[in-house]
């Protein structure tokens, strides 16, 4: 009776939780409904966690003597893990969001791997299907854990340069094959095959290999490709959670895991498309090393420079301005100053829009969050497809800390490494200003043909300092007029 009640309670609450997760994610289709959506998902999560303590009524006889200790351990683990991550999440800088998400993601993968480890070491899985699924979930979860940690280290600047050696792909392939082979051994060992090493040892080797593979797979990938990598590991963790959900016969885990797996896959494809590269290309070809003089040769024309104050006044008297922010804006911590300048333009009845390229920032949509943090209303923020046609009818395009995403070579120059990548048509505006630290190439080391176009003028200097000058120039005008 008690067992049945427990099953009903857990089953019912998990069902509601699964619904709330999907409904909450669905609410993210608009920034207005999204906050309520995540809160509903949060309610579902709290319910699912609390009700899972009812598992104490269904534990095996073997676990019964340890129950009190296990409950205590569970409460302590929830407390420490939850409070620590909560505090970190509440205080983390928005610019550091990608590495934070990578960490949380790795934690999820590690938890899925841990569940698999308990199942395997405890020999709890029954039947070949369950065992294979457990191993698969363990493999994917472990790769996600160690890979996400490397992604974190790269994004956080702990690991500076990608680590690459000749024949790396073959080495990684070899490690993968070894991992799968060890998985096969565990499979046979669990079915009674007698081996020189005990089954637990093989299980440990399996986890070790999977973790090593995650590290090796992520090490050679360049920092610029991290948005794709984070998305992939998000999908991996989701998949691992879904698979372990099957092993534990818990549909809530299966559903939530698969939903996230699909989400991660979709985001991965979107990011890869925005970078004009295939996912395989990101993972296996080690982009991100500066292309030495590859592609565009000498570009006709010269870079012209203009004073910040002149550019500011031109924008003040323009009727429409589109701002193209890139990660350089965030690196210079200039979002606040930018919005201050935009507010002056708005007060002067200038139409201002922000144009965001999908790969602006270090994870999908990060630029939007950074602008929102600075107070920019989201109805002023437009995505590539929605705004690209507007440049032709716009007086001024102001490019700040962005480079490759406005390089017209992507449209015209077949020899350019970024040829075919969707770009923002800033060069179609009547006047283009580019705020840039100094002359030179961008992140990817590709010459930007835009800078040499007749309509383009460069405003050299640190983004924050330039914007301060721009604000002063426009304020000065206002004072003179009054």
């Amino acid at each position, binding site marked *: 009776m008690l067992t049945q009640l427990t099953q009903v309670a857990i089953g019912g609450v998990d069902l509601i939780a699964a619904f709330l997760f999907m409904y909450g994610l669905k609410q993210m289709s608009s920034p207005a409904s999204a906050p309520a959506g995540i809160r509903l998902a949060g309610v579902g999560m709290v319910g699912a966690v609390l009700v899972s303590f009812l598992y104490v009524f269904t*534990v095996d006889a073997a676990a019964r003597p340890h129950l009190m200790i296990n409950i205590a*351990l569970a409460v302590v683990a929830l407390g420490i893990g939850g409070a620590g991550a*909560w505090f970190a*999440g509440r205080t983390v800088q928005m610019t550091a969001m990608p590495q934070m998400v990578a960490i*949380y993601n790795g934690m999820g993968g590690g938890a*899925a791997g841990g569940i698999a480890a308990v199942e395997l070491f405890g020999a709890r899985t029954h039947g070949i299907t369950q065992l294979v699924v457990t191993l698969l979930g363990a493999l994917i979860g472990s790769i996600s854990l160690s890979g996400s940690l490397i992604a974190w280290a790269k994004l956080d600047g702990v690991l500076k340069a990608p680590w690459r050696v000749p024949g790396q792909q073959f080495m990684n392939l070899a490690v993968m094959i070894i991992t799968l082979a060890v998985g096969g051994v565990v499979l046979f060992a669990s079915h009674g095959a007698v081996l020189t090493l005990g089954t637990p040892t093989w299980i440990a080797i399996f986890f070790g290999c999977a973790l090593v593979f995650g590290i090796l797979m992520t090490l050679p990938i360049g920092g610029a490709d991290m948005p794709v990598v984070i998305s992939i590991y998000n999908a991996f963790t989701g998949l691992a959670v879904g698979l372990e959900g099957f092993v534990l016969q818990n549909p809530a885990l299966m559903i939530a895991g698969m939903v996230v797996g*699909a989400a*991660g896959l979709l985001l991965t494809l979107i990011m890869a498309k925005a970078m004009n590269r295939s996912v395989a290309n990101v993972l296996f070809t080690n982009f991100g090393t500066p292309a030495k003089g590859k592609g565009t040769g000498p570009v006709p024309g010269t870079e012209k420079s203009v004073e910040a104050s002149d550019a500011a006044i031109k924008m003040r008297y323009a009727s429409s301005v589109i701002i193209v922010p890139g990660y350089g804006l965030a690196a210079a911590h200039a979002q606040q100053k930018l919005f201050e300048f935009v507010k002056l333009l708005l007060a002067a009845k200038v139409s201002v829009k922000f144009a965001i390229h999908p790969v602006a920032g270090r994870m999908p949509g990060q630029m939007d969050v950074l602008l929102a943090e600075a107070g920019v209303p*989201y109805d*002023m923020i437009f995505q590539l497809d929605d705004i690209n046609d507007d440049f032709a009818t716009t007086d001024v395009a102001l490019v700040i800390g962005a480079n490759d995403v406005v390089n017209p070579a992507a449209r015209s120059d077949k020899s350019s490494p970024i040829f075919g990548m969707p770009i923002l048509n800033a060069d179609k505006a009547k006047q283009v200003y580019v705020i840039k630290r100094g002359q030179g190439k961008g992140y990817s080391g590709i010459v930007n043909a835009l800078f040499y176009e007749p309509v383009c003028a460069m405003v050299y200097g640190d983004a924050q300092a330039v914007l301060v000058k721009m604000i002063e120039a426009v304020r000065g005008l206002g004072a003179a007029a009054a």
Partner: protein
Amino acid sequence: MNFDITMTGFVALYVFMLAGFAGWVIIGGVPAILHTPLMSGSNFVHGIVVVGGLFALLNASTALEQGIGFFAVLLGAGNVAGGYAVTDRMLAMFKTSNDTTKHKPGAHGRHAKGHAHKKS
């Protein structure tokens, strides 16, 4: 009556397929502007793995299992709490022009109303 959930073979595959499809469709409807909160939000959702961790830990019968189970719950709890904290924080930042010029109460009122509507 038996309330035990047992899923084998094709039933599980159907669940996976439908959930994957639902995820694809739901996520496809999320605008690019929310892709970062979406990623951290879906990150939060896979934090449900903590429930599996709790199951494993509560059923642990050896020190090794207890250790791994503790580790799984610790990481899962971190995944949940962290994922929620950052997502909620980011989503609170998104305001419209009306919100920023007219102050927050308006926005909250609208939320509350919309919320009540959907619940009824």
